[in-house]
């Protein structure tokens, strides 16, 4: 894992990718810092952290598009996959390399609150908490980017799809507000999920029996829940979509609340996408 990590980290700075990422990130961060802190003489630094999160939409695809797609395009994945390394350690090495570049950039921005502290009092712990949230949010976005990069051998497609996925997460909270919360729509959505899962199983295994069983069990569970607790389906769509709402949990950090649950959430979120990446690579070798 360490070898892959080191190679990826070097590769970021052997090509313009690392510099573009850091440069753009620091530029946006600097502009916001100048406008909301320096020019207004305000020590309220955490607002900078909450307003620059949009920059992830643009820079995360730059950081992750190459990771897996370039390996399969250049056929260097043959080297990695025929070496005694496990797929998990390859994926982790790449993920941590991208996260390390991100972390270095974030650490550079730590200079801004230090500058502020010379001229006034800053809420140190609030900023530390804010940075933890900021870092975890970025790391979760990177895991999505890495996953998408493993699906294609074209960097541009990986970048565009990653951008789309992040944009979807971005507007998710806004979408959630307009979604119906009544019982019927909840049940329809749950049934669609069960059928969708069965269809997915069918397309991957081509086994009609297993997928039919999954669909029947899924629908059975839905019926069971309906007869025992029918209020479960009130707002079911909203609750499901909220699982994916990375930004809602980020608000806690910005309010100065540092609790365990969003931290666990972000780490789990990244872990799930890393797991999916490993599965995609393993799957490709089987088909």
């Amino acid at each position, binding site marked *: 894992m*360490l*070898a*892959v990590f*080191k*190679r990826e980290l*070097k*590769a970021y700075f*052997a*090509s313009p990718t690392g510099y573009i990422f850091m440069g753009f990130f620091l530029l946006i961060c600097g502009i916001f810092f100048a406008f909301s802190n320096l020019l207004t003489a305000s020590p309220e630094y955490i607002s900078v952290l909450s307003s620059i999160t949009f920059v992830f939409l643009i820079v995360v695809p730059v950081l992750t598009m190459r990771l897996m797609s370039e390996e399969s395009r*250049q*056929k*260097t*994945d*043959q*080297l*990695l*996959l*025929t*070496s*005694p*390394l*496990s797929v998990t350690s390859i994926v982790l090495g790449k993920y941590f390399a991208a996260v390390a570049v991100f972390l270095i950039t974030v650490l550079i921005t730590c200079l801004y609150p230090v500058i502020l502290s010379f001229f006034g009092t800053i809420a140190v712990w609030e900023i530390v908490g804010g940075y933890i949230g900021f870092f975890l949010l970025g790391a979760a976005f990177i895991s999505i980017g890495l996953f998408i990069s493993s699906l294609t051998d074209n960097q541009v497609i990986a970048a565009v799809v990653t951008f789309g996925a992040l944009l979807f997460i971005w507007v998710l909270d806004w979408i959630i507000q307009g979604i119906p919360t009544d019982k019927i729509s909840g049940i329809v959505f749950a049934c669609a999920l069960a059928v969708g899962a069965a269809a997915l199983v069918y397309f991957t295994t081509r086994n009609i029996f297993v997928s039919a069983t999954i669909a029947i069990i899924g629908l059975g569970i839905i019926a069971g829940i309906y007869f025992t607790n029918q209020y479960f389906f009130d707002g079911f769509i909203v609750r499901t979509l909220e699982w994916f709402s990375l930004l809602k949990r980020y608000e806690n950090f910005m309010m100065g609340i540092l609790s365990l649950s969003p931290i666990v959430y972000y780490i789990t979120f990244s872990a799930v996408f890393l797991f999916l990446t490993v599965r995609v690579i393993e799957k490709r*070798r*089987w*088909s």
Partner: protein
Amino acid sequence: MIQVIDVTKRYGQHVAVDHVNFTVEQGEILGFLGPNGAGKTTTMNIITGYISATEGSVKVDGYDILEEPEEVKKRIGYMPEFPPLYMDMTVQEYLDFVSDIKKLDRATKKRSMEKIMDLVKIGHVRKRLIKNLSKGYKQRVGLAQALIGAPPVLILDEPTVGLDPKQIIEIRSLIKELGKEHTIILSSHILPEVSAVCGRVIIINKGKIVASDTPENLSKRLSGTGRLSLRVAGPEKQVLKLVRELEGVKNAEVQGVKEPGTVDILVEAEKDIDIRRPLFYALSRAEYPILYLRSVDLTLEEIFLQVTTEEREVS
């Protein structure tokens, strides 16, 4: 050393490798011969664990590729058809990286690195970026990569493709040299290459093994056609008539006139008859001197045609 048992690989409806069985003994150099798309690369990818077989199993040194992939992969050095090189690294950085992912310790790494660089002659380009190297050097770096960690088994997929004739001879003698210490499988679509290097040849076509023999036996079986190309100084019609009337000649046709006053003829003899001497005496008696006479090698297509029809006759 290597056991390939009933390996099949399907891509949807298409069968890339069809129930392939063979074993490779320790210290053997096995040649894998077949046209493009015959399933050579797929078979090699399955042995090295890059892709998995739909059916069947592969064992290297007693370890199954599916059950103990790490043990198998440790024992194999693989050089794919397109060497898996990182263009943004220098040769030295790249080989260091490969030693790291093959989990070599520092001392072994240092010791083996110099030896390998000497062996494939890339020591003087070690500081250069791989993307700036010529095709021949890239190929050598690819080979060096396979040699790192001194794996007992080497799998080389078309190791001489894209090289100039001098480099091809170098690489071939290098492979022969390596064969003293390693078990080697190498693929090619050039028969002379395989017969020059390998102790045994497997011919594969459309995913199936059609022949498996030593190169000597194979060429004996294939030399039966006895086709000769010759240039004779003399008038076209008379020469052709003379040749056709000769006993043992199945067919003769004019290939063209390359030198004024001469004619080039392609002669096909009956099976198992050596017509070179009668041909010589007949033409010299008629005072049509032979300027050159050589036997024509079979093209790969013809070899397959012959081997496949022969197999059918046998079975």
